[in-house]
């Protein structure tokens, strides 16, 4: 397969990964939460898309209008009920990891009892279509997913840079205490950020539903991938999430072509360890003293 073709694959998928990872890194940035349930929420979105497709014939891309808001609400609830009570805990990040881990298990269990452990996916027509340009082809499924992701990410960017609450979220991500001192209600802003972060995961789930097969246990694989990605990009850095997503995806595409299918995931983990060796704070993260 020629270089351009592989790069196209890498970039298109990378955009979708960026959508998935952005919410995750945002939650870390706003509140130092490592949300291990993030991928589980994504799978929930995928199942919602699946059911909408199977029972109502709703196109997965369109279902983003449902999965996004639905998971937004879930995100806010999870913040209010689970993470907010832990806010004063001195071992906050540790507690949130364990908490979200438990949440992920519970979600997997519930999904498993509703849907059983077989593989699912939606199959709209564009999932297998291609656009041929000269010697390369562009898979329409990935292309639409890429475009949808970019639209959402652009919307997020506009929100963060042109609206007051968006500014407040960015301020809180940079320095929570400083944001409080200038009058940001960091509690409300955190709830909003959570909603947005998980909502993005939900919307990404719609894309996942036709781009990949999934089953209740898939979230483990995905969370590993996404976490590795945001560490490489820099925990809490939105720019890092995007660059990391596209960059790693392209590298993984080449690795898969050269070395085999397992490298589509293995690349991410290996590069995680590499970045921990070489630059532990990630590409765009801030160096820590410890």
């Amino acid at each position, binding site marked *: 397969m020629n270089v351009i073709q592989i790069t196209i694959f890498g970039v298109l998928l990378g955009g979708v990964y960026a959508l998935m990872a952005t919410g995750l890194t945002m939650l870390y940035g706003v509140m130092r939460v490592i949300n*291990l349930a993030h991928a589980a929420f994504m799978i929930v979105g995928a199942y919602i898309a699946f059911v909408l497709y199977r029972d109502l014939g709703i196109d997965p891309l369109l279902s983003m209008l449902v999965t996004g808001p639905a998971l937004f609400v879930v995100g806010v609830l999870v913040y209010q009920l689970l993470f907010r009570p832990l806010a004063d805990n001195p071992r906050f990040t540790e507690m949130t990891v364990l908490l979200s*881990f*438990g949440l992920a*298990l519970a979600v997997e269990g519930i999904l*498993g009892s509703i849907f059983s452990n077989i593989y699912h996916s939606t199959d709209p027509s564009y999932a297998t279509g291609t656009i041929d340009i000269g010697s390369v082809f562009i898979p329409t499924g990935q292309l639409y997913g890429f475009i949808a992701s970019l639209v959402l990410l652009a919307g997020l960017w506009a929100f963060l840079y042109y609206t007051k609450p968006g500014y407040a979220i960015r301020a809180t991500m940079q320095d929570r205490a400083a944001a409080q001192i200038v009058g940001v209600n960091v509690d409300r802003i955190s709830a909003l950020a959570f909603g947005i972060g998980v909502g993005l995961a939900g919307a990404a789930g719609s894309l996942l539903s036709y781009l990949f097969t999934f089953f209740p246990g898939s979230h483990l694989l995905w969370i*590993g991938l996404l976490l590795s990605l945001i560490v490489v990009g820099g925990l809490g850095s939105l720019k890092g999430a995007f660059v990391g997503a596209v960059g790693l995806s392209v590298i993984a595409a080449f690795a898969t072509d050269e070395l085999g299918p397992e490298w589509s995931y293995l690349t991410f983990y290996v590069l995680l360890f590499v970045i921990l060796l070489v630059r532990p704070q990630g590409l765009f993260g801030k160096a820590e003293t410890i």
Partner: protein
Amino acid sequence: MADAAPAEPVGGPAVSRRRFPLSARGGFLLVVVLGLLAVPLLYPVLVPYAYVLQLLTGAFMWVAFSSSWNIIGGYTGYVSLGHNVFVVVGAYFSAALFVYADISPFITAAGAGVVCAALGVVVGLITLRTRGDAFIIATIALMLIAQIGFDNWMWLGGSSGIALPPLHMSEAALVKVPFYYAMLIVAAGAVYLSYRIRHSRFGLGLRAIAQDEVKAEAAGINTRAYKVVAFALSGVFIGVGGALWGYSLFYLRPEIFLALAVAADMVLMAIIGGRGTVAGPVIGALLIVGFNEWSVSEFGSSELNLTITGVLLVAALLFFPGGIIGSLRERGRLPRILDWD
């Protein structure tokens, strides 16, 4: 924890004017251990023999697993969510030596522990350079790497697995006996290690790191070295236990050991029992093993089990972060026989 009565060291006195040489705590433990040693001897009488031995063997293994996890996840406050990597490495290490060099896992199990410790050092050096957040993620990645690695390692059977020569005894049920004793030793070793760490300067340093790593570093503790050693130690008995577990199954597949539930249970047991205490993981392991037995016989399916595990974990963290031991201690109601800290 210091005893109230000064002349009463745990487990046996150096100098004592008491009539009984052991404290209540030491005596209790001795009775328990002797009792456990005696169980397999009840062969003709105990029914169902194989089932009970198997259940207890499993309990011992989980006691070892959760006590070991507690070293890094409880004492040091560094949550490892991919800790079952040590299980699979230990299991396959001994399995490989058995299949290809004909050495019984009962002999190589200790080596499995050493290998896991070495792995812990290597991984620890890479991942413990920054604060906890990256470490946690790295342990997940490690588990996923192991999944892919072992699934594709054809020399060890890949995802189809590897079969081990079975063990033969005069009666079929007696096959369980050597595993019973071996795992009991592993559990005792793991708990003893946990106890010794807790009561050492090393353990004090780990706890300082858990409380406030910056201050610990400022106080002169080489936090990186401490963390790496803790991580390595936390793998030892898991490797040994894993080797024995693999052998006891006589057929190994990576997914058995790398199942999310294995990693989750280790964590849950330590937290429910009481993270950062010596007795906590033991209590937690016994409770959860018992609970799992009951729940599987009641509900059968494993999805519900997973949900319950998750819900229990969430509930414990929100309402009883100290676990059973911690909560009892807070209320001043911890019985002395359970106070091993």
